[in-house]
């Protein structure tokens, strides 16, 4: 058993097909067909990952995403039929870690799911410092002074990637590859939205970031320790 995936989708045919594909890849799939029941299903099944359709009857995907995010950092991958930037950005801002645009190839979806479930194997004790933030990599904890800052695993990965090489400027493409597991993608919305979310949690003033700095025309880098 590689992990349990909660599929929240009102289209039964698609849900069933997703179940077949996920089972074929060794995942356990549980289903929920509408927004209202999603949170209950989430609490009941305690999945390792949520596949969430954005357009749901009743409570829509964005709200479900917020509700789940409010109580858990579990990876959420959105399924969306719209490739319009605004829909995707709204989805990402509500807390989703990644998205796949319908119609997607099964391999693509599985790659997204795997990337989100993959945890770094090297949980050796490692302490990182950027700006006034200290990161305990093995303990998955981020602190400013004695305050613990709560980050989702994805935000944690993003911060660690930047903090491990504070001398290096990371282009969005490199971050996409290292944190999301994408190769050769020009989709920078993922990075932009998550950097913003990360900043809103760890910066004293998100308008004037000190921890995650923008390098115009290139990408991002960690602030000086």
């Amino acid at each position, binding site marked *: 058993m590689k992990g349990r995936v909660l599929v929240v989708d009102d289209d039964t045919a*698609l849900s069933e*097909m997703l179940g077949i*594909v996920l089972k*074929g890849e060794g995942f356990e799939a549980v289903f929920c067909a509408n927004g209202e029941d999603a949170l209950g299903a989430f609490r009941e099944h305690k999945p390792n990952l949520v596949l969430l359709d954005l357009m749901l009857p009743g409570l829509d995907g964005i709200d479900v995403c917020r509700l789940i995010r409010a109580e858990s950092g579990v990876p959420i991958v959105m399924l969306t039929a719209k490739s319009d930037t605004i829909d995707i950005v709204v989805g990402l801002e509500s807390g989703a870690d990644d998205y796949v645009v*319908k119609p997607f190839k099964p391999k693509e979806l599985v790659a997204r799911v795997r990337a989100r479930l993959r945890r770094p194997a090297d949980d050796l004790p490692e302490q990182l410092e950027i700006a006034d933030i200290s990161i305990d990599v093995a303990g998955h904890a981020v602190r400013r002074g004695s305050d613990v800052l709560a980050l989702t695993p994805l935000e944690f990965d993003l911060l660690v990637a930047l903090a491990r090489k504070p001398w290096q400027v990371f*282009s969005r493409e490199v971050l996409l590859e290292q944190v999301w597991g994408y190769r050769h993608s020009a989709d920078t919305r993922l990075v932009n939205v998550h950097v913003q979310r990360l900043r809103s949690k760890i910066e004293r003033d998100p308008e004037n970031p000190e921890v995650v700095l923008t390098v115009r*025309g*290139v990408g991002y880098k960690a602030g000086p320790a």
Partner: protein
Amino acid sequence: MIASLLHGWRRSLQLRVVTTTVVLSALVVALVGALLLDQIVDGILEAKQRAAVAEAYGGFATAQTLLNTQGADGASVGLLLGQVARDLSTRSTRGAEFEIVVLGSDAQPEQAQQFNPRASGLVEAESVPLDLRRAVAENEDPQVTYRTISYSNDVTERGFMVGRRLATAGAGFYEMYYLFPLAQERQTLALVQRTLFTAGGLLLILIGVIAWFVVRQTVTPVRMAARVAERLSAGELQERLEVRGEDDMARLALSFNEMAESLQQQIHKLEELSRMQRRFVSDVSHELRTPLTTVRMAADVLHEARGHFDRDAARSAELLQRELNRFEELLGELLEISRFDAGAAALEAEPFDIRDLVRRVAADTQSLSERTGSEVVLWLPAYGCIADVDARRVDRILRNLVVNALEHGEGRPVEIVVAADEAAVAVAVRDHGVGLRPGEAGQVFNRFWRADPARARTSGGTGLGLSIAQEDTRLHNGWLQAWGRPDTGSVFRMTLPRKSGDKVESSPLPLVPPDARRAHDAHPALSTGADPRDETGSGEPLRVGRPSHGPVNGV
């Protein structure tokens, strides 16, 4: 100064109308003034002449009566006449002045000829012209003429002269002349003239001011309408004119507002339609995509499992898989195009180095490059080529151009050249394949256009790729242009402004490659695209900078 006046003249209807009115009025006033003055002069002179003649006749009658009753001889006639002249000249009063001259008639006896001319006041007896004297000598009736009167103090004055022959019993004929200087009348006329000029001037100023106000009444609403129209065209559709009263201006305002209202309604209707269209596209997109995802996944599962099927079923699974790919691609592009058509496409511009985007596209198209045998060669400058672009769209444009070049490259190398200047960045994709026939360069961006309908497609492009690329470029305010020549190859050049919102004025790269320009050809297929200029004059080299890396296999 003159330029600004001219500018004002062209710009201001008010200035033109007022000037025209004043100029035309000046002409009319001048004409009326001249006529009036003429009438007044005639009237005054006529009255003066009547008065003069009456005065003179009275004088002549008195003199003749004296001569008849006193019957004087030669010597006393002189005295008598002198006396009469003096007596009569005392009747001259201020305002009706006259002088009297008495002369001896030439044609008559010696006494008369020797008669010393008598003249009252300072008047010169020589003032009386000879032709008048001749007329007086020949006629019994008094003669009137209008002449210059000279005085002994060197003053001259125009005036009437009335003369008559006086007969004596034995001392021959004498001539008596009344001279009426017109000094008074001249002064009166000068006064009248001055008054007329002043009145005319004042009248003109008044007309100018009146015209100014009248025109202002008309022009102000017109200017207001112009201002409101400008605001309307700037998109402030709720802008309206103020309607006051029920005159023509109010009617203009009313119809203007009606027009604005109907425009606003039309625009709202169109916006509503566009919104509905967008909504529809979005809905269709969603509704189609969900089942397509299921079908797609099912096809993949079948495709994976085709080893367990019999031959036909396995082949069917393969065909299903492949055609689904095409279907998906086509659907995606159709939705993209309809998004452009609905005006729903938005630019997400961020600073990007175009060289990075080119490198990535080259790396991604490597497998196609290996399949077609066309090597991808990059010519990237050493300097940065950062521009505000929507990376997703530029990536799509470049991918389209490179895939297109590889498909039509006939196995010969495909070159990608990047260059930048202060205002723009450009990427030219050159292939050395079949090229384009004359006229085709303008058509390649048309939807579903194919160079040769009979030609087999190697990778099953949809025919929408270049149209989408052009829409993407247009969204950046950029140019996408094509050049080609049969069997020489073709060039697709994308030029984008470095700052989002700017317009492209010129491209840092030539469209026609220098090697092709040297080979003389009368009819190169050259698309001007969004750029109306002739590019053949520019002499820049196609290759700028050194290749940062050779064939893309090394990436």
